[in-house]
């Protein structure tokens, strides 16, 4: 069956957005909220409806390589709710037997029962929002778990799942390179295969933003953030992980195939509010509120050749895939003085027609990438 499918159909990824949280974190600016059981039920119904209706057009042409439940916090779904959505996907789409199936989970909502259910429903990768193992920091940023709980839930998860990823945040008050490397060491010792390291970003009008304004929280300076991040990166790479994207580290073979699909401009379907899809060269975004989502509102954008090139450059340079010069149709980098400079300065590397960004300059990637747009 596997061989047949590959011959017949193209690959696609599926993203399912679960916008619910037990509590909103202080730094969060994403589309997530606390919901009643009734609201959750309604949303699950809408999700299944969307999956069914969109599958009609797509499932003949595509088979699913990866599934990703993100949020929000997918782990707040009850096992039954989770099963409803998952079964709908399996019913409507051809899913490869070896498809990567990731669920994002927070320590506070992980239970043995849910873990069992996920396993049973073919989930094979967990991404756990640890963020930090320092209790004071966890409290400051409004997480519901403690260091102890995080480690306990991680151990529990590891019993059933080999492929576990953890998130860490760099930039928290008082954080040092030594501290965060120590945390990484603990995670690795528990068999974590993948770590996503995010920089603390402060968005206007988040509680954290006001805490900073009021002097209740002082994040690391830009200089310290970069230094701390670089120490962590060095530590993880010394431990045998590869930095395959700006924020992502994995042991060989444990890279997130779902994310790699985004970065290589593969096609994907996003279900749920604010979910993004990329299909037949068109990017679409579902409505951001449940009310509009219920009405099926979608915004679409067809990319110009220049915009497509910008995506190739941006996505390629943010990960170790790079981009292929011959893939660019509208942007002529040979005419861009920055391109020659960056190659000369060792900021960009060029090998066999593929251009990659030197990881030493990942922390300045916006400047570099935007200069290549021009």
């Amino acid at each position: 069956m596997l061989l047949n499918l590959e011959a017949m159909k193209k690959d696609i990824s599926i993203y399912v957005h679960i916008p619910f949280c037990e509590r909103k974190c202080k730094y969060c600016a994403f589309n997530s909220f606390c919901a009643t059981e009734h609201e959750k039920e309604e949303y699950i119904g809408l999700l299944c409806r969307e999956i069914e209706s969109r599958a009609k057009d797509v499932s003949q042409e595509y088979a699913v390589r990866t599934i990703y439940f993100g949020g929000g916090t997918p782990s707040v779904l009850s096992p039954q709710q989770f099963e409803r959505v998952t079964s709908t996907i399996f019913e409507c789409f051809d899913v490869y037997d070896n498809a990567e199936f990731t669920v994002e989970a927070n320590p506070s909502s992980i239970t043995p029962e849910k873990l069992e259910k996920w396993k049973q429903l073919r989930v094979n990768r967990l991404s756990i929002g640890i963020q930090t193992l320092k209790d004071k920091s966890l409290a400051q940023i409004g997480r519901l778990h403690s260091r102890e709980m995080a480690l306990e839930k991680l151990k529990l998860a590891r019993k059933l799942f080999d492929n576990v990823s953890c998130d860490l945040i760099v930039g928290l008050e008082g954080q040092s390179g030594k501290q965060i490397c120590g945390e990484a060491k603990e995670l690795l010792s528990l068999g974590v295969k993948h770590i996503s390291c995010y920089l603390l970003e402060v968005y206007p009008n988040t509680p954290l933003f006001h805490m900073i304004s009021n002097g209740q929280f002082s994040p690391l300076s830009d200089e310290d953030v970069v230094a701390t991040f670089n120490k962590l990166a060095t530590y993880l790479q010394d431990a045998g992980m590869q930095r395959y994207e700006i924020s992502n580290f994995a042991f060989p073979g444990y890279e997130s195939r779902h994310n790699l699909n985004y970065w290589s401009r593969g096609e994907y379907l996003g279900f749920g509010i604010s979910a993004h899809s990329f299909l037949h060269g068109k990017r679409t975004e579902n409505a951001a509120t449940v009310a509009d989502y219920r009405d099926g509102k979608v915004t679409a954008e067809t990319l110009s050749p220049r915009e497509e090139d910008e995506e190739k450059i941006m996505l390629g340079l943010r990960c170790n895939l790079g981009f292929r010069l011959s893939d660019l149709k509208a942007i002529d980098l040979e005419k861009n003085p920055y391109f020659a400079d960056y190659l000369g300065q060792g900021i960009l590397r060029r090998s066999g027609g593929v251009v990659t960004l030197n990881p030493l300059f990942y922390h300045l990637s916006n400047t570099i990438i935007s200069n290549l747009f021009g």
Partner: protein
Amino acid sequence: MKDLSHIRNFCIIAHIDHGKSTLADRLIELTGTVSKRDMQDQILDSMELEREKGITIKLAPTRLVYEQDGKEYVLNLIDTPGHVDFTYEVSRSLAACEGALLLVDASQGVEAQTLANTYLALDNNLETVPVINKIDLPSARVDEVKAEIEEVIGLDAHDCPCISAKDGTNVEDVLKAIIEKIPSPKGDDQKPLKGLIFDSHYDNFKGAICLIRVFDGTVKAGDKILMMQTGKQFEVTEVGIFVPNTKQVAQLSAGDVGYIAASIKTIADVKVGDTVTSAACPTEKALEGYKEVQPVVFCGIFTVDGAKYNDLKDALEKLKLNDASLKFSPEASAALGFGFRCGFLGLLHLEIITERLEREFDLEIITTAPSVSYHVFKTNGDMLEISNPSNLPAQVEIDRIEEPIVRTSIFTPPEYVGSIMELCQDKRGVYKDMQYLDKQRVQLTYILPLGEIIYDFFDSLKSRTKGYASFDYEFVGFQRADLVKVDLLLNGDKCDALSLIVHKDKAYTRGRELTERLKKIIPHQLFEVPIQACIGSKIIARETISALRKDVLAKCYGGDITRKRKLLEKQKEGKKRMRKIGSVEIPSEAFMSILRLDDDSNK
């Protein structure tokens, strides 16, 4: 022969801000030239910039009709600019008149341009009538100012009109004085045509328009005219007068001020100062023309978007149609690409042209620091005129450099004399003279390098004297000076657009100020960037811009690639006003703002 006894041709000369345009407005109102409904302030200043800055840039003539003792008089007023940059325009209007009103502010008294303009009027044998304005001000000191006029200028002021142009008090006296004191024109309408072109402008429909003062003869549509200097002939399509908008008339004759249109395709065919005569029956001798004005301040003008070079070229050509004093030639800069080296009459002129380029032509431009033109004598005997510092030959090839110098007269209340002398010393000035005009006014005369005047002299003078001093200057000649070129290196690359020629004694200070200034203006780059000032290969100052710390979108959220791309596109847009010099990005303002060093304003 036509009777000319009812005609008066006059202009108003004054120091800037003494109320020239306001008086013109009142005269226009009083004579009913423009209906109340159409009246607006500074009516003769048609350019938006003129009204905004409260200055007059272009000449604007108007015909006023006034009845006195049962006789109707035609009074042709030619408004003139007051700023020192436009002195040459003043002298042009003077040649078209028999008399001038010398307007003096009752609280400020005689100022630098009052004197400079009076001398111009006397040179042109004009009857000069003093008028004291702003008598409504609490600080007005009419009697003292009258005494100043008599002592300093030597004009009889005992019965001169004392007015307030603002509220209209005694303005009628001015009209009476014009009729009584200014002679009517002498001329013969039976003689061959002889007219002076005192200005020109370009009209999209009619071609180049000549503003003329007819001295002899007549001119009407259909006449064949000859421009005596250029030798070009045209057929007149229209003649008219200004009221103050153009009004077609049947003919212009001796004594009249008006315009001629003759399907003249390019403004270059109309030479201001030329004599217009009849092609069939020319006058024997041309009128004495004007000296060609020479630009004294130069700078490079480039577009922010290098692809707009041709737009800039078109815009400059259009501006030149109405401003013959604007000079420009193509220039290439390693840092800024293709642009133009432009010559101006002064800093105000430069400022006006650059503002008009941005406003009227919607161009985003980069202006390099202004420079004067140096005479550079090479060891091989050649002499080069250098107005772009980056073109200065290597030190070893230079025998000597001469810089333009000017005679400056500064009028000031006595308490600021010390501070002004200090400023002039600092600007390498040579003291010539000091005269107490009365208890309140001192006239200081200095010989100063023009290059120092264009470098923040005016601002420093204003701040040191709280705005009470005024100054004027005239070109004297060239003088040898110990000058060097200071180059700026960014990350080791020379930036030609930032080079300056300065006196050797000031090179270190300026080098240090410049590097400090650039450090403030240039944003952090991917690498640490040294900024060095050097003379030849010798480094005289150095600053370092530390590297950018962090600029990254860390979280890749879901599949939202569009948001990320748009953020980066926005970042790129924000950089449009940046120029890349080697591997360093510089905001385009940097090239001009480095000149406005705030070293002096704190004193």
